[in-house]
């Protein structure tokens, strides 16, 4: 049982409130669900739509057309979405939602109350138990939800798409919440940032933590300042991060290079949106992979992660701080608007033990850039011992003083850049799913993981044998990472949200592996399972069956 609803309306009209309240209730009632949104870069007007998928099994992607139910808060919803309503689906027309609004106004004194009434309606359609709904809702919403149920009953929609709640009471997070949580678990205590969609809510969640936890968020005057502030904090001994989108990251590049030169640990979240330039500010894309892999002048080591699930985002965000510390490099978390704005139920248990970095020791002979056997100099922080901590953006000697000793320069480059070899052993392997023996292996990275996973399963049910391989670490790519999967002897297809097939190109450059086909989408929207199935079916069977 699988039910997909779309709620469409103008920005500021309440569709987001309906989504938010609905997902809160669904989580509290123990439903499996997935929710995401498609919104315009405006505060009022236009047309936004919010999509919720509810099922009796775990769901982590949009199923694709047709919709089982449409809730229209504006006239545009009819034109845009009604053609995609399935036969026998529920269409809550603008006239009907108007009726709900006017009743909400007269019964509860405000139109805003109608959001909760709509949620009550939705819960009734999926057959949610009225007592459980009443228990799960707060006092002030109870009557509103009940009113929604009576609308559903009046119009004969109650229990129309009954779905049993099978998730248990789970945790519900969106991608940006997961990143902020992972960062805090990783011991990150400082974040500086400048608002930019779709990264802003990471800053919001971090600054909310700062109300009571020993962490600090500082809004910087620009992204250049943000990254330099974070590097200052990291130098001073506090784990630090920044988050931004492509345009802001363009400004941060000098800081990436500075982190590389000074070997200052930092974690950088780049939540992608379609470019170039301002692009489509509130839509999704995966076109900044090349940018991140090459960002910053000069040569130095880095790691780039691209999490594909909430759990993976929490884990990788948390571990990024350990890795940034251990290798004294910038570590990137490359996500996108789709991932940032999708709300998911977390089925697996989360590891929620916060980490703490023991203060490093330093003695009087301390040298920040001491040349060591393994190429990692000891990290220490100012003011914690009698030794001084000196770092420099110029080429420097072991003490951190400017040098133009060119022999030493070569050794310092070897130390910084040679760290790539150490990163090989720390690489996070890709995740395999589907039929491991299949001739065709579909590759993806970042937020496409769970969309592809479901598509591969669905096609498997049709007898189309496919395997999927998701890269949560996209750089560096090492031979060891792919060794178990026999990439060289299989037909490879890549799935990416960009026009250039950037990951496929990276794979070729780094490992000499060539994909034979690519499924690319770059109109600003995510893939749906149905759409991906169509593309893969065509590739595998040579036609659209």
């Amino acid at each position: 049982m699988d039910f997909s609803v779309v709620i469409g309306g103008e920005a500021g009209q309440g569709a987001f409130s309906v989504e938010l309240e609905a997902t809160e209730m669904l989580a509290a009632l123990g439903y499996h669900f997935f929710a995401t949104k498609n919104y315009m870069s405006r505060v009022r007007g236009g047309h936004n739509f919010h999509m919720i998928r509810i099922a009796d099994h775990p769901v982590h992607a949009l199923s694709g057309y047709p919709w089982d139910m449409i809730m229209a808060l504006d006239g545009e919803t009819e034109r845009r979405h009604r053609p995609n309503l399935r036969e026998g689906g529920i269409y809550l027309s603008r006239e009907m939602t108007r009726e709900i609004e006017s009743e909400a106004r007269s019964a509860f004194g405000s139109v805003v109350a109608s959001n909760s009434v709509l949620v009550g309606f939705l819960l009734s359609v999926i057959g949610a138990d009225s007592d459980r709904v009443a228990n799960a809702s707060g006092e002030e919403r109870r009557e509103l939800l009940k009113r929604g149920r009576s609308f559903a009953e009046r119009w004969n929609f109650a229990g129309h798409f009954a779905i049993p709640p099978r998730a248990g009471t789970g945790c519900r997070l969106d991608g940006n919440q997961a990143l902020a949580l992972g960062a805090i678990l990783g011991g990150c205590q400082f974040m500086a940032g400048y608002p930019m969609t779709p990264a802003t809510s990471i800053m919001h969640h971090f600054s909310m933590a700062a109300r009571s936890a020993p962490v600090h968020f500082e809004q910087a005057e620009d992204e250049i300042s943000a990254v330099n502030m974070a590097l200052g904090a990291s130098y001073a001994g506090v784990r630090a991060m920044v988050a931004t989108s492509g345009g802001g990251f363009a400004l941060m590049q000098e800081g990436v290079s500075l982190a590389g030169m000074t070997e200052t640990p930092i974690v950088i979240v780049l939540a992608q949106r379609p470019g170039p330039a301002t692009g489509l500010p509130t839509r999704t894309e995966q076109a900044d992979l090349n940018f991140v892999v090459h960002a910053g002048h000069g040569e130095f080591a880095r790691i780039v992660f691209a999490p594909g699930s909430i759990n993976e985002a929490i884990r990788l965000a948390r571990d990024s701080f350990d890795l940034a510390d251990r290798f004294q490099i910038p570590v990137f978390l490359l996500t996108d608007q789709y991932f940032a704005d999708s709300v998911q139920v977390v089925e697996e248990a989360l590891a929620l033990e916060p980490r703490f970095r023991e203060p490093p020791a330093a003695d009087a002979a301390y040298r920040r850039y001491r040349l060591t056997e393994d190429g990692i100099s000891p990290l220490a922080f100012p003011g914690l011992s009698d030794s001084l901590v000196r770092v420099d953006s110029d080429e420097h000697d072991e003490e951190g003083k400017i040098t133009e000793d060119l022999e030493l320069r070569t050794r310092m480059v070897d130390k910084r850049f040679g760290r790539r070899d150490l990163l090989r052993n720390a690489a996070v392997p890709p995740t395999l799913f589907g039929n491991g023996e299949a001739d065709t292996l579909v590759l993806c990275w970042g937020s496409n993981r769970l969309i592809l996973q479901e598509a591969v399963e669905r096609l498997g049910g049709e007898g189309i044998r496919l395997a999927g391989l998701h890269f949560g670490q996209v750089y560096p790519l090492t031979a060891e990472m792919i060794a178990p999967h026999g990439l060289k002897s299989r037909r490879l297809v890549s799935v990416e949200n960009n026009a250039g097939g950037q990951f496929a190109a990276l794979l070729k450059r780094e490992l000499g592996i060539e994909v034979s086909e690519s499924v690319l989408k770059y109109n600003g929207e995510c893939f749906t399972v149905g759409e991906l199935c169509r593309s893969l079916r065509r590739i595998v069977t040579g036609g659209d069956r």
Partner: protein
Amino acid sequence: MTTARSDIAWCPGCGNFAIRDALEKAIRELPVPRKDIVLTSGIGQAAKMPHYIDVNFFNGLHGRSLPLAVGIKLARPDLTVIAYSGDGCHYGEGGNHFIQTIRRRLDITILVSDNQVYALTKGQTSPTTDPGTVNSLDPEGNRNLPLNPVLLALSMGAPFVARGYAGEKSHLKDLIREAILFRGTSVVDILQPCVSFNRTNTYEWYGDRVYRLRKPRTGLFQAMKTAAVWGDRIPIGVLYRNEEAECRTGKTLYGERITDEDIRNQLGLPCVMMR
């Protein structure tokens, strides 16, 4: 382990030598151990200063000494943080940081070797260069109005604003010490003769013009009036000192642990949709 004068990358006669001596003496007189002092700097001749003083330092990128200082101070309120750079670094490349850092009301000291020129890159126009000055990129003379750093600092609300002169070493030492000890953002613009690239604002030129203020002006408007004085007479000393100004202190972060309760709070937050 002080640096030998010969290892210093400045030209003989450069005003920065005197500033270095003044800064070194001021630091020596502070009730703060060197291990608790951090100098940040950008890039330029002035920005090399940290290499010649025995304290912690982060010599960062051109224009970025201030965001580094802000990050350090917020992360570690226990450290004494001084941002040191030139006029090009603090007022040009980092001009917005200069404005915005003052607004943050942190206990940071901002010191500027103001030689009215981009010295390291061999003499181009800086934000404080006199109009009409000719150089390699302004062969017809600088057409821009100069920026008045002390007036700008005052208008941004800096609670401690001073002007020093490299030719008045012990006066400068006192200014720097007072600025560091002041609780709040303090700005000291230091007039620094550059013997290689600034043929106008020389020791002789300053010698004829500079006079010492006996005490800070009373009130912001008096201070601004004095700050605007530039030409035949150039006042040096503390222009403004506002003891009442509030200073923001960051909370202790270093060594503090995130608790399970912090994590529970985090899990309870509602989702948001933000542009």
